[in-house]
């Protein structure tokens, strides 16, 4: 009855651990670094990435059994949910924070990323266009898969993508 929240693993005889995990806590530990990175690509800054990952994971975790029951790969499911949440919920926030307060201390490397023209141009894209670009080049999804993930038509994906690429080209040409 209490299995859902347990960290579940077993230990083989002979010492080597055959640790295999089916619970949400372990999924979070395993997937956090990758999801934060992905969130960074989606949102354009590490603060929003952490917020986005946390809020999506908490929602998914609250329905963990039914997410597993759907038979989807949970990691893929979380990533799609992040893209969607970013497009729908983060839109306003991101606009407000566009020239956002940036953590000066722990992120020197990221600050250098900030100076890359392509990164700057990406940050200025509207969230849905940016999501399409991230799904295409970060996740390697096809247009049909992107359309399914974002719940829009293939035509919308096409047009958002070409708008995004045109904007990026123009901005980089200027820079």
């Amino acid at each position, binding site marked *: 009855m*209490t299995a859902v929240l347990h960290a579940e693993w077993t230990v083989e005889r002979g010492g080597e651990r055959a640790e*295999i995990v089916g619970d949400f806590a372990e999924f979070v530990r395993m997937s956090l670094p990758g999801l934060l990175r992905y969130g960074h690509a989606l949102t354009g800054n590490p603060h929003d990435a952490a917020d986005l990952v946390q809020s999506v994971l908490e929602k998914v975790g609250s329905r963990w059994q039914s997410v597993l029951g759907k038979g989807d790969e949970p990691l893929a499911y979380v990533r799609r949910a992040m893209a969607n949440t970013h497009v729908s919920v983060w839109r306003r926030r991101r606009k407000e924070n566009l020239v956002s307060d940036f953590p000066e201390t722990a992120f020197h490397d990221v600050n250098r990323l900030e100076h890359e023209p392509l990164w700057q141009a990406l940050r200025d894209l509207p969230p849905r266009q940016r999501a399409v670009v991230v799904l295409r080049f970060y996740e390697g999804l096809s247009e049909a898969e992107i359309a399914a993930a974002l719940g829009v038509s293939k035509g919308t994906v096409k047009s958002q993508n070409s708008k995004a690429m045109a904007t990026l080209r123009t901005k980089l040409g200027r820079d």
Partner: protein
Amino acid sequence: MDLDDELRRLFHDDRLDVAVKPGIDEEIVGGARRIRRRRNAVTGAFVFAVFAAGGFAVANIGGSQSLPPAESGTLTTTPPTSSSASVPPPVIITQTHTVTVTVEEPPAGNAPNSNNVPAGYGKLKLGMSQADALASGVLVQPSNTALGPCAGYRSESVPADEAAVVLSPSHGVARIRLPGFAKTSAAIGAGSTVAELKAKYPAAVPQGSGFAVDMPGEPAWRYVFSVDGAQKISGVRMELKNSDCTLS
């Protein structure tokens, strides 16, 4: 450089990495638990009442919450408290589990660390008796296809595979298929490459279209890795080496 390539390069950049805040994983698990508890508060009280007291006094127990019982409709199909293991529990038992957890709060991370525990996944251990496996509650639906004298079951963690778990009347649990996100102790799981598999398990031998690795332990068992067209691991199973089941 081509813009496409430049985007791919940017998204592979190490500078995209974000430091994981210490303790954030526990915070997230706690947050998920709170959301679920809020949603299931009334339903949880209801199920608890049914289990503990035979189903009366529901209104009083659930009365402090104003949330509607989100999934109370499923309660009508909840099987009677099962002490007998002769019939595998129907799919709906999953709901009962989720709800019951909101009532009992087990401490996190109390994994058994004894060296004598047989290999397994969650509540299921290889070689565990058929009756114990059926009583574990993680087998959700029997398959119609016979595997020798053995029977396949969908499991809670791999509901898509009708033979995710295979039970032998004489040898007990003969196969446990792992969910897609699970990894072995050597961090091999779905998505790992064949090269990574061979590096971590030099003893891997070809089996069918994949690989098998004998593992130490009692009862004797092995990992079976299936491989897809792109030379990546597509699935991982734990199997008894000696059973009377037809494990393809």
